[in-house]
């Protein structure tokens, strides 16, 4: 029978099921395939916080959401168009986000008495009509697979494990995606186990075939290629992008790379990636704690490495004192903080943007340092290199803020050519002639990087206040004032060495929407929508939080109202008000979830 094909410029699919159901794999494969098909893609994995929650429980639900399209995609999608629910709990948890009239593919086997009660359903929603506003497809996947593979007796373990591929096959049909990339992956993954390969490929096809041949599946959706810049692409998460950015930055600076870190959710990926980069000559230390992580980075920086440390909130708090030392001895350290929901242990697996205060002000003494923020998974690569550039050029620790959302979200990334990346200029000295450890570069105010091994440059540094130029310990009152101001001025000068802020939309007018970090995606989407509607609105995304671009003040003064949506109670709002004395409206979402574009859109409509 023939079916209708409907064109769409964006769609959101969500796979949901038990931790054991292979949801993350299915989602990753779907997004890879979509990338390969030339769509823009934005995905987010949604793990339970328990390692292995009991099967079928609500808090054990694992999900993976893919938002893809032919147009520019900046979020993981506000609402779900197609929900694949492998069991009752996964339906219960995710139904709230399903579009009016959205598609549900339910694995009926996962709606037995046990599963229903664990999900807290009195009776089966698949049968009692509770889902009538949606397009419900129920499939007993296990049975379908069995019949499909009738004859060859597949061990139940493989059966259970391959269900995700069946579901994947169905979605491939619905969105008319090729199976090859997945087949390739299967062959690679199970290399050597031919029977497993065979079974899995069969199951994948079976899913496709099932959808193709079942009359209830009346519609296929076609999503055109997005017009992407030509080049080689891959999908990447923010955390992986940071790890790659560090290696790339070291190469461009011709420095060895050293990472000193302690594991912590959601930043651990970075340490794990780096620990596998031995053949790239990368060194690292899994330290005894975050203090040692930061201190080992300081030691490596003192020795001439591009030194970095990666962590999240509680770890950043612990690094506080050591960061002050790095500021005092003026060595470059890249500090990556993948923000999670606080305070204290808070909600470790959930994203938030509430470490801005600490990054900006969290040190005893007058101790300023540059603070940057990445706006998306792929932006993490560029901003990591930017953090390294500033660190080595200005001889200062730099904090780069990302968060658990962009850290784990994936996007297709155009793989850069190393030639196109900026060269980094470490300010090494090798000539003892007229050397002084605190003699500054008049333009950058950076002190020279004089590392051990250079004959004639023997000198001492430390955390005590030191004399301008000579670096000798000094308590002279005027000197302390001068040095304190120099340390401040050095950082503020960086404003001249960063891109100007850019306003999208009207250059002046009623409302300026100002985003930072991961709120970029939702904010940009909201702006695009309203701007298309011809609303008088403008948009600015801030990546440099300290110092801020030199043209920001004049921009802010050109607007009647300023809105800053933040995943905190108004931290950037407060900083902007303090610096520029302009009133700012805040939109504060602290729920462990990123903004939806429409939440920002609604707030803007109120303001317009």
């Amino acid at each position, binding site marked *: 029978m023939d079916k209708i094909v409907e064109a769409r410029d964006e769609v959101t699919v969500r796979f949901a099921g038990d931790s054991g159901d292979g949801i993350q794999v299915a989602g990753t494969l779907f997004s890879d395939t979509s990338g390969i098909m030339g769509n823009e893609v934005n995905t987010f994995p949604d793990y339970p916080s328990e390692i292995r929650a009991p099967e079928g429980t609500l808090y054990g639900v694992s999900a993976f959401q893919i938002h893809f399209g032919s147009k520019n995609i900046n979020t993981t999608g506000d609402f779900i168009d197609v929900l694949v629910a492998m069991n009752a709990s996964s339906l219960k948890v995710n139904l709230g986000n399903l579009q009016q009239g959205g598609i549900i593919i339910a694995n009926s086997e996962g709606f037995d008495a046990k599963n229903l009660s664990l999900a807290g359903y009195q009776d089966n929603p698949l049968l009692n009509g509770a889902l009538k506003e949606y397009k419900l497809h129920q499939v007993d996947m296990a049975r379908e697979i069995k019949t499909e593979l009738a004859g060859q007796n597949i061990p139940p373990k493989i059966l259970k494990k391959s269900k995700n591929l069946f579901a994947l096959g169905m979605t491939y049909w619905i969105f008319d995606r090729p199976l090859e990339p997945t087949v390739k992956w299967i062959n690679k993954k199970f290399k050597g186990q031919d029977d497993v390969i065979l079974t899995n490929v069969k199951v994948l096809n079976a899913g496709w075939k099932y959808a193709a041949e079942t009359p209830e599946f009346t519609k296929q959706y076609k999503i055109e290629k997005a017009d992407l810049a030509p080049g080689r692409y891959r999908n990447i998460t923010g955390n992986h992008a940071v790890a790659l950015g560090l290696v790339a930055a070291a190469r461009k600076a011709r420095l060895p790379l050293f990472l000193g870190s302690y594991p912590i959710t959601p930043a651990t990926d970075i340490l794990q990636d780096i620990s596998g980069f031995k*053949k790239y000559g990368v060194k690292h230390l899994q330290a005894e704690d975050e203090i040692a992580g930061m201190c080992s980075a300081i030691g490596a920086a003192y020795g001439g490495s591009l030194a970095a440390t990666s962590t999240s909130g509680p770890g950043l708090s612990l690094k506080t004192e050591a960061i002050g030392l790095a500021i005092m001895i003026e060595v470059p350290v890249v500090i990556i903080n993948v923000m999670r929901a606080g305070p204290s242990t808070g909600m470790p697996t959930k994203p938030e943007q509430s470490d801005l205060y600490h990054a900006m002000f969290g040190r005893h003494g007058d101790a300023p340092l540059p603070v940057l923020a990445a706006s998306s998974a792929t932006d993490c690569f560029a901003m990591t290199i930017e953090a390294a550039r500033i660190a080595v050029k200005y001889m200062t620790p730099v904090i780069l803020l990302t968060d658990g959302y962009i850290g784990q979200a994936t996007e297709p990334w155009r793989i850069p050519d*190393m030639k196109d990346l900026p060269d980094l200029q470490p300010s090494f000295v090798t000539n003892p002639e007229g050397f002084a450890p605190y003699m500054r570069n008049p333009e950058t105010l950076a002190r020279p990087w004089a590392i051990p091994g250079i004959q004639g440059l023997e000198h001492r540094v430390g955390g005590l206040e030191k004399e301008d130029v000579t670096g000798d310990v000094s308590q002279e009152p005027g000197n302390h004032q001068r040095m304190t101001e120099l340390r401040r001025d050095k950082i503020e000068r960086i404003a001249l060495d960063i891109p100007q802020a850019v306003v999208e939309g009207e250059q002046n007018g009623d409302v300026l929407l100002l985003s930072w970090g991961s709120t970029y995606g939702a904010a940009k989407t909201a702006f695009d929508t309203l701007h298309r509607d011809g609303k008088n609105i403008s948009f600015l995304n801030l990546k440099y939080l300290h110092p801020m671009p030199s043209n920001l003040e004049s921009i802010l003064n050109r607007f009647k109202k300023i809105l800053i949506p933040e995943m905190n109670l108004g931290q950037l709002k407060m900083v902007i008000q303090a610096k520029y004395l302009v009133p700012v409206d805040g939109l504060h979402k602290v729920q462990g979830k990123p903004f939806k574009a429409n939440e920002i859109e609604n707030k803007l409509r109120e303001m317009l």
Partner: protein
Amino acid sequence: MKTIVDEIAGMAHVGEIKYVPADFKPDVDVRWCAGCGGYAVLSPVQRIMPDFGIPKEKIVFVSGIGCSGRFPYYMETYGFHSIHGRALPIATGLKISRPDLSVWVVTGDGDNMSIGGNHFIHACRRNIDINILMFNNEVYSLTKGQYSPTSHKGQVTKSSPLGVLDEPFNPISLALGAGATFAARAHDKDRQILQSLLERAARHKGIAFLEIYTNCRIFNDGAFDLYTSKETGADNTVWLEDGKPLVFGKNKDKGIRMDGFTPKPVSLTDGKYGINDLVVHNEKDSTLAFILANMSYNPDLPRPMGIFQAISKPSYDELVDLQIRHEVETKGEGTMEELLAGSTFWDVK
């Protein structure tokens, strides 16, 4: 890829490497109190430096905070006066990233055993190639006289006016318990031995922990007199020498004998026991090292001084390089292209 640092690390020293102790004295005045035990450690360190034939620019002294922390200012090498308790992790990052350097940590009983305790035990465990000189004066001096984790029970200090209630650490036992490959104890009154132990520590590959009883004239004067004075020293200490029996006393007339696992002091003159009945020291026997360390705080026994243990294991920094070399040899040096591309990628025309 050859980095700038590879180039610097590879730089040849210009001129012959031939130093005299004076070459290691910067022209600053030492700001320790007159009579501080620190002086007694500083000069032998400066004296032995020339012997290693290591160019000055390859030597780094890292310290924490405390009177001991000023040490780097008094050495004409690279120096880093860091923050309280953190000299070791800083030195660790430095040594891992720069195995070409000779890295020394100078610390105190508070700096290393109180706030820095965790870094200390982990440095011992990792066997990173760093020499630790711990100035133990059994008090916090820079902050003007509070008790430390090595202060003895009952000690009256500004922060224990009624006497310390804590049991002190036995630094050697702690180091051994944490896995240190080299652990030794010296004091500031016997320059000879102190110097020889400094030499041994410096030549040891891996972590070398040297506890040095250092008298604080101002806040804990005479704390070690029992072990260091002409009158009482010989009878209250026993020097550990590899392969030699444990003999002590002014006239070398006493020794240590094992009674089961319990070391007992015996006379060598009352005819009951002779040299051959005594424990013979063996730097490589880590069980013996524990026994000797453990006897430290037993009032009936002389306090052992010298090298408790010196065994060789590959150092952490070596292993890091080895692992990298092995990877590169087996898998080839990685290119940025393959790293950036990862396993799944596609081309857009």
